[in-house]
């Protein structure tokens, strides 16, 4: 049960993220929801990387058979960087939209439709 805690956290974070995206109307809050969802996936992957009795791959002289493959960590790091880039781009879009439309309410940002 204890070992499932990270996965329970993943599910909780996903639900919070999805609810934020779908229920909030403020653009910035929707971006926060996307970030929470990204964090949930990151936590999921990093939790997969845990191996009981394994040795962290930062120690040069360990027996190589017991060393844990660092792939999930590398994936998460890459994913975090991508998430930062996405957040930056989304927030800069929000700045321009606020300047031109005068609102960050997602219901009012529908110049393009049909």
């Amino acid at each position, binding site marked *: 049960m204890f070992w499932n805690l990270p996965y329970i956290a993943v599910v909780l974070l996903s639900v919070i993220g999805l609810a934020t995206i779908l229920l909030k109307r403020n653009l910035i809050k929707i971006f926060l929801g996307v970030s929470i969802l990204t964090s949930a996936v990151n936590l999921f992957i990093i939790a997969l990387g845990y191996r009981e009795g394994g040795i962290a791959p930062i120690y040069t002289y360990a027996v190589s058979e017991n060393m844990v493959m660092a792939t999930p960590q590398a994936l998460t790091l890459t994913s975090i960087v991508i998430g930062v880039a996405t957040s930056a781009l989304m927030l800069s879009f929000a700045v321009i939209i606020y300047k031109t439309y005068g609102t960050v309410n997602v219901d009012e940002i529908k110049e*393009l439709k049909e």
Partner: protein
Amino acid sequence: MIPGYITTNAPALLIAVPLLGAFLSPLIGKISRDARALWVLAVMTLTALIGYLVAFLVYTEGTLLYVFGATNATLAVPPDSGGIPIRIIFTLDAMSALMVTIAVTVGFAVILYSLSSDSRRSGLEAYYTIFLLMIGAILGMVSTGDLFNFFVFLEISSLASAGLVAYKVEKGRAVEAGLKYLLVSTIGGIFFLFAIGILYGQYNALNMAMLADMIQWTPLDKLALVLVVAALAAKCGAVPMHFWTPDAYSMAPSAVTAMLVVASQASLYGLFRICFTLYGITLNYATIGWVIIILGILSMIIGVTMAIPQKDIKRLMAYHAVSQTGYMLLGVGVGLAVLGDQALLNSYGMTAMEGGIFHIFNHAMYKGLLFLTAGAIIYQVGTSDLNRMGGLGHRMKWTMIFFIIGALAIAGIPPFNGFASKFLIYESVFAFSPLLSIIAMVVSILTLASFVKVFHSVFMGPPLPGNEQVREAPRTMLIGMTILAAIVIISGVFPEFFVQNLIAPAAHALTDQAGYISAVLGGA
């Protein structure tokens, strides 16, 4: 003729050249605008040449491997790794080679066009950087053999595309389109990453060949497949997840729109690659095949009916892009629905897949051409509103001819290439289910009807007052369009040559899961 170190490292250069060129272009731009234009053109030409070289190698010598960081570029499984291909491996089979060919051809024509069509804008130093970045990301998506690597390139292409869609700002409307595209792409990316996590957690591998070798059909695999299909179908604009398509396509600069079509098709490639190569016959092929067919049919019908009442030329064409994506989904979906039944596959499944894949090729060419003509019209008239156009045929003769070629090709009128692929789809889908084939033909007729409307309202009639200053488009724009128009005509008049040499190997590469696995893992 070509030095050995270039042919060995060609798959890596395919990504390295556009990336390096992208980030050097702001520096070159400090010298002068012409230097930057020359630099961008040179980088794109080099990328195109490498792309053709890679495609040529794949078509003549079979699947091409490139292992990053290995002492030997084709050493996929290191001897001390216990049989796991731990490195990032580029696996280019015939399907990838076809997509590379499409991407570099459209990329070259579009860059040539963009050099004059976008030369009036400000902020060009960033524009060309992002543009080359997007082309590099598309090339990466279609050539990688690693799931996580695919995700990274998917995200790079999403970010670059969203930046380019928002590039014009247009009182915030372009930014709104970019924002919608970015939100959809990000959610798609999160879905995809979640699927990667599920697969990695079960099989401890990210390499597609390795996963394909081990994959079961557990409930977790089903969840992963659903996430991937939803994410990539949304990215390629299948109904009912197509809403971002008209927004993004209509607000992006026209050259970018033509490239966005290719970016969507790279997502489509990912969808097919994962369904066929990663899951293969372990998945419930009839169900997934029908899911893809239904997505395709919905895209065809809703795309074309939404296009007919549109009043913005690029929005109209964007809905047609949705509708044409439906043909590709239909053709390949029929192939997937009969994947496990060799007799049916030989009877009509392969032909349907060839039709769908040929349509990817054709669509990239004629849709790119149509968006470029729309861009030339908007460049000269200054508006994209169809109600304010008319009589342009008197002044823009070449643009009109290119528009006619593209419009007849998209409507499936012989002898242009759109008919060749639709012919394959009609005949083979008719054997699968006559109703689907009839729907496809009706959608084709509606497509023709809606392009007759565009043709009439833009080019026909007397020259309208207010359009006196309209001239023919600049020459580099015309050259870009000529390249695509020539390909549309040639592949329409000699379809058998293209199908035999480019399309059929790609279709066989998709169905040949065992061949893909053995190319990477070696042996059985």
